[in-house]
């Protein structure tokens, strides 16, 4: 089948791209320069490629790019910048929740998905929410602490 033009709205920008039907959203995003979306397994086993697809956190390696035609996509880089970080990005940085950093963008997506639904999560809810995001460095404790701390800050500041 021939490449087909699709429209991807990514982090507030609109891209018109011609893609083959067998390309995953992960590959499409990375080829467009959204390299904060990380490739760790291409099988949905690690969560490093997590993005929001129309507000729902998904593994972008399990979505064909065509399936995301006209969709709103939000990646971790779309949440904030180093000048104006999202409270989760600040909390992850300050809590020691980032070591190698390769899982971090996907982890932040899953954490945000949780806080969107439950602004005051328990530790158990945080653990469940990030259970599809493998981290090999931190042992998770400081990540869980970072999500708690971001939740408190967002609650106090009405941010996010």
């Amino acid at each position, binding site marked *: 089948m021939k490449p087909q033009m699709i429209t991807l709205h990514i982090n507030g920008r609109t891209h018109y791209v011609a893609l083959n039907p067998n390309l995953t959203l992960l590959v499409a995003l990375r080829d467009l320069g959204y390299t904060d979306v990380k490739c760790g397994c291409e099988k949905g086993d690690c969560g490093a490629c997590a993005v929001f697809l129309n507000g729902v956190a998904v593994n972008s390696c399990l979505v064909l790019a065509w399936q995301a035609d006209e969709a709103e996509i939000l990646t*971790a880089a779309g949440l904030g910048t*180093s000048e104006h970080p999202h409270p989760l990005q600040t909390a992850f940085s300050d809590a*020691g929740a980032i*070591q*190698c950093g390769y899982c971090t963008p996907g982890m932040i997506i899953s954490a945000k998905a949780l806080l969107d639904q439950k602004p005051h999560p328990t530790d158990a809810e945080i*653990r469940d929410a990030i259970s599809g995001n*493998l981290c090999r*460095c931190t*042992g998770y404790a400081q990540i869980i602490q970072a999500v708690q701390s971001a939740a408190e800050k967002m609650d106090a500041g009405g941010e996010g």
Partner: protein
Amino acid sequence: MKYQVKPLPQVNLPELRTVGKPLRKVDAMGKAVGDTVYAGDYSMPRMLHGKVFRSKQSSARITRLDVSKARALPGVACVITGFDVPNARLVSDMPGQTGQKQRAGSDVPVLASEQVRFYGEPIALVAAETLEIADKALSLIEIDYEPLPGVYDPLEAMKPGAPVVTPPDNIVARWKIRKGSMESGFEQADLIVENTFRIPYQEHAYLEPEAGVAWIDERGAITIRVSTQVIEHFRTIARAVGVRQNKIHIQGTMVGGGFGGKEDITIEIYLALLAKHTARPVKMVYTREESFLAHAKRHPYVIKHRTGVKNNGQITASKIEMISDSGAYPYLSPYVLLYTTVMAPGPYRIDNVQVDAISVATNNPYTSAFRGFGGPQACFAYEQQMDDIARQLGLDPLDVRKVNYLRTGDCTATGQVIESATWLEETATRAMAALGEQTPDYGSVKIGQGFASYFQSYGRITWMHDTSQAWVGLELDGTVTIRAGVPDLGAGQANSLCQIAAEVLGVPLERVTIYTTDSALTPLSGTSTATRQLYMSGNATLMAATNVRNVLLNRASKHFEEEIEALDIADGKAFNKSDPSQTLDLVDLAKMCASEGMHLSNLALFKAPFTDPINPETGQGQVWPDFTFGSFAAEVAVDTETGEVTILKAAACHDIGRAINRAAAEGQIIGGGMQGLGYGLMENLIVKEGVIKTPSLSEYLIPTSMDYPNIQAIILESGTGLGPFGAKGIGEPALTPAAPAVASAIANALGVSIPEIPITPEKVLAALDLP
């Protein structure tokens, strides 16, 4: 509380301004917002995509290799086989490091051309315009094999008549320790305890698969941007590719996890060959499955302990035999084996020790460095042995250990005197106390608590004559620049140097910027391995920053008309300690120095202790600069009907000498501990006839956020380490005691020990001797 926690010995550590604080690491925010560019994120103009064609046999002769169809495919830029690059071998023989046969160290063909020795061995390289074309080209390569007998069990491989993986024989390395007398040691014993322990592979499973991009720059240098723990491999690559050493330029990237798996050369040698042959930029990124196939694993071991003890638990003799599976090529197996050998008796004072260790070649996946470097295998065995001694003597596990724990001034089994603090009882009692009261058993669930103590070296083998360099400079706006060839694996390697320089030069951490990991542009700082960067590059940074500070203080002393000793620098200002209102801004001070031609930067070289190799017949001599000591404790719930083990509580207590960044140190302790828990309970690399049956993250399971509780990290600071400000190292030590602690807790719950990890539900049920 099971054990009494005694106060620590008095330690006087000066309060520091920056060092020790849990500050935001300098690399954190870039990673949080997705600015950090990893090796697989780079692209270059006119870039080709590289792929590796790998063996589908574990042991075979290649009778035909035809790449003509692949070469003819439109869009294929080149296909390289071993016949094209006959001299491409990875040979490393770091000076003075063996005391072994010449084969110790790595000697590996980059591409197999006549014989394959393991499943997944590289045979050909392809570079093509697109990944799809490269994949297609792989499928067009034609190969015929004539299967050769393979050998998959190191014990079998040692037998006469076994298939020989690489002539002359399958013995890759041997180490021995001879201390005291076995005869008199066992004569003095009231009881002799014997056990055999089996310790498995472990896969690094870093989240970032191997990746890189290479091109030839305007100087004609092959430049390789790659995720690596060792930029110094440029020397080995130069030899293998056939160019001068100053024509290989490694630009290391932020590493998405290493743990030893990116210590050996990985993808960079293929990139170098492809870039050279095509004269175009080439990118290569492993899939997860290829990563499983391509890089080394932790060594499986069989370790036998025979220990003579007095009735009070005092060890009179320790006889240990160990065999490790090196797989098809040696890589770092001889050195890993040395580590296991020297650490084999554990952190115990024993007069009579005999260790015989052998590393054996097989047609299994090759094995090499993994966090702990042979230490975790040794620890699992010696700590289960200590528990069994306690059980057989009817003594408490801590009491048995207390009689034997190494103290400052004692000798290791190789005769190395330990000069730093050895807070073993201190860490064991604190880790156990952190667990609190033991949860009662319920229903078919039995609860147990246990702990393990360890010692683990930091810094490289002292007869490798290790050095590290760092450059520190003060800029004219009062900011600080560090240049150091330190690969940052995420453990805070670069950040620690920044906190040290900030401390010495009296500036806030945000004013320090570090440039790392460039083999041509940053001073070489050695490998990010062996828990050595804080110790080595930390000291080099401390030296360089101190030299700059001395220049500043000299100039300030003229300005204030005070002795240097009366002055200090903090918060970006030099000041008079007796009258802190007298200040001189660092910016002004820097300008004064610059206008007077004073040197505002310094390149320092730190040398570890240099020693001669140990005696190959007795193993006697110094092996490492120093050791970290600590303990790990766990409480487990074992379902005796299903065999499932749940960790209820876990705590780790280590004397790290001095924390440079407390949050980062805790991160090492918790993260390393988690890898150790996974190793003990869950991680199960299944290998049949040399083929990995679990080559994905849904088959080779590593811990998720749901599996284990938070590990309580307890940091002790004796200030007695050889690193900056009295720091020791914690990167590798964090992992070492976790698996044996869990095994101890399970044995405590069940009353029967399981001498083999991972302790899967099936092994638990087997141990309970139910049908």
